[in-house]
């Protein structure tokens, strides 16, 4: 039974949030993780998620939005089911990060922050993701793919296409 009567989150996540607000010396410390975990479940941080998180932490929705707008991983609009994040920062740039980004734009037919019409992929050019020694690197959602070439990138995208099929056909 969640601390919130009618949680918009799954019972698992609601239970996790119930616990999360109790572990810190100040419960507001749970805010950034909660926003990220909410996004993991819903796909973005929705208005309803902001409202519930504010309620759980005794904050104004304004306080929550103020923090939400600061962090680059948090978004208020849906991304694709698989968010392809191509690093073009210095180490990746030297080993073909920009070519990889261009390749993704060409094959997915979307630009930076774009979403494919079927909702399967979105594309993002990101800053350093901490995989410099295995560059160029890409993160698809939270999975790292390293030492890539355009051909290897195609294979990576195919893995996710196959995954989407086995997970019940169309992406949501």
């Amino acid at each position, binding site marked *: 039974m969640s601390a919130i009567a009618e949680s918009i989150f799954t019972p698992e996540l609601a239970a996790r949030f119930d616990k999360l607000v109790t*572990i810190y010396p100040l419960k507001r410390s749970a805010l950034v993780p909660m926003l990220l975990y909410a996004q993991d479940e819903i796909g973005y941080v929705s208005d309803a998620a902001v409202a519930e998180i504010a309620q759980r932490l005794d904050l104004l929705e304004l306080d929550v939005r103020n923090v939400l707008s600061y962090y680059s991983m948090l978004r208020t609009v849906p991304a694709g089911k698989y968010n392809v994040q191509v690093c073009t920062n210095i180490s990746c*740039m*030297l080993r073909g990060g*920009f070519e990889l980004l261009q390749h993704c734009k060409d094959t997915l037919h979307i630009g930076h922050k774009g979403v494919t019409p079927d909702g399967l992929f979105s594309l993002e050019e990101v800053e*350093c993701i901490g995989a410099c020694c295995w560059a160029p690197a890409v993160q698809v959602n939270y999975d790292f793919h390293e*030492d890539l070439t355009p051909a290897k990138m195609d294979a990576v995208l195919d893995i996710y296409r196959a995954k989407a099929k086995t997970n019940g056909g169309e992406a949501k």
Partner: protein
Amino acid sequence: MPTLVSHPDEVKVISRRFGTGAADIEKYIEQDGYKAAQMALENGPEWILNTMKASGLRGRGGAGFPTGMKWSFVPKESAKPKYVLVNGDESEPGTCKDHVIFLHDPHAVIEGTMIAGLAIGAKMGFIYLRGEYRYLLNIVEKAVADAYAKGFLGKNIFGKEGVDFDIITQTGAGAYEVGEESALMESLEGKRGVPRIKPPFPAVVGLYGGPTVINNAETIAAAPHILLMGGEAYAKLGSERNGGTRLFGISGHVERPGVYELPMGYSMRKAIYDVAGGIKGGKKLKAVVPGGASCPVLRADEIDVGLDFDQMAKAGTMLGSGGIVVLDETVSIVEFALRTIRFYQHESCGWCIPCREGTDWIKKTLTRFHAGGGNKKDIDNIQYLAENMMGRTFCPLGDAAAMPTLGFVKKFRKEFEEYLEGARVEHPLIQIQPVGEPELAGAH
């Protein structure tokens, strides 16, 4: 999965358990795991501080502040609870060493956190990982749970009455600025990651207003090894006033990029040409960014320098976070400088005006310059802007943006001038478009 690399010149201290499955607590215990924490528990804070001071360990996050001294600044008596904070928000471009530590030896970070806690009298520690490192957060969280199950964490640790220590793991959500210590505390308190003015320093007023020790994850992971081998023995591995070894991430145009553990003071030339296998494809070296993107660039003729904090400072640059980025002769410095400032412009939190405006104007000027609309005055202007950012911000991000910019325009001024005259080496594919503009405008 990051590939593990190895070279005979490596001195493996922090990396000695890499590749042995030490993320598993049993494997970790087999390899002297949690012995150092028990030694720390028996011998007390004074002994820990003395050993850490003798080790000559200096902060691996980039500033190079002596760790033992930092810990000793925390007042013994405090009305507010004290905290240990581990900075795993590794975001400096060119740096991926903490990534490998969390992956291969998460218990070393946990044990190091306990040791720091015992040294300063804290009962709680936080391990903060950047949001992108979710798979590593899962590994660290499991390691913490395993340590609780063994009774190493929680109430009465190692069965010792009255000694409690808890660890909370925390994820960020994407912000370079949060790697700065006071901004990290703000983030951990559930706020925007903007820096605090210093003084007061974290050792006096830190997280939740309590005295706080905040260290880079690699610094913390070194602590158990230092207690096991003794401070003097660790110090001897490195160069004068630069104790021990550190993880160097060598990336860019080298044959064998990777994270290598080398003694402090090791030759940069050897690190590039021997350890990392030399320049990729037999090309010529052009320049090296020696310690992450914020460190001023070195020309190819300047790399006969020892990799420690003092020798690098003497060479006019910094050891930083140990991320050595190697550029071959094909790289356009104009383009590289633009990519670098574009990063800092994107990551400036906007709190201090010199940084917010300075990074933006340098980026705008360089973008126009790179696109072919530059003139000679731009080069002076970029230098002027960067010089006026230095030392004028709450946190070091302003400096971190200004220093490499100054390095590029001062050391490669000729290349900027030649670029104006059409001697361009830009890559046709690369049209550097600012991240966050304008397509991002609708996303938030």
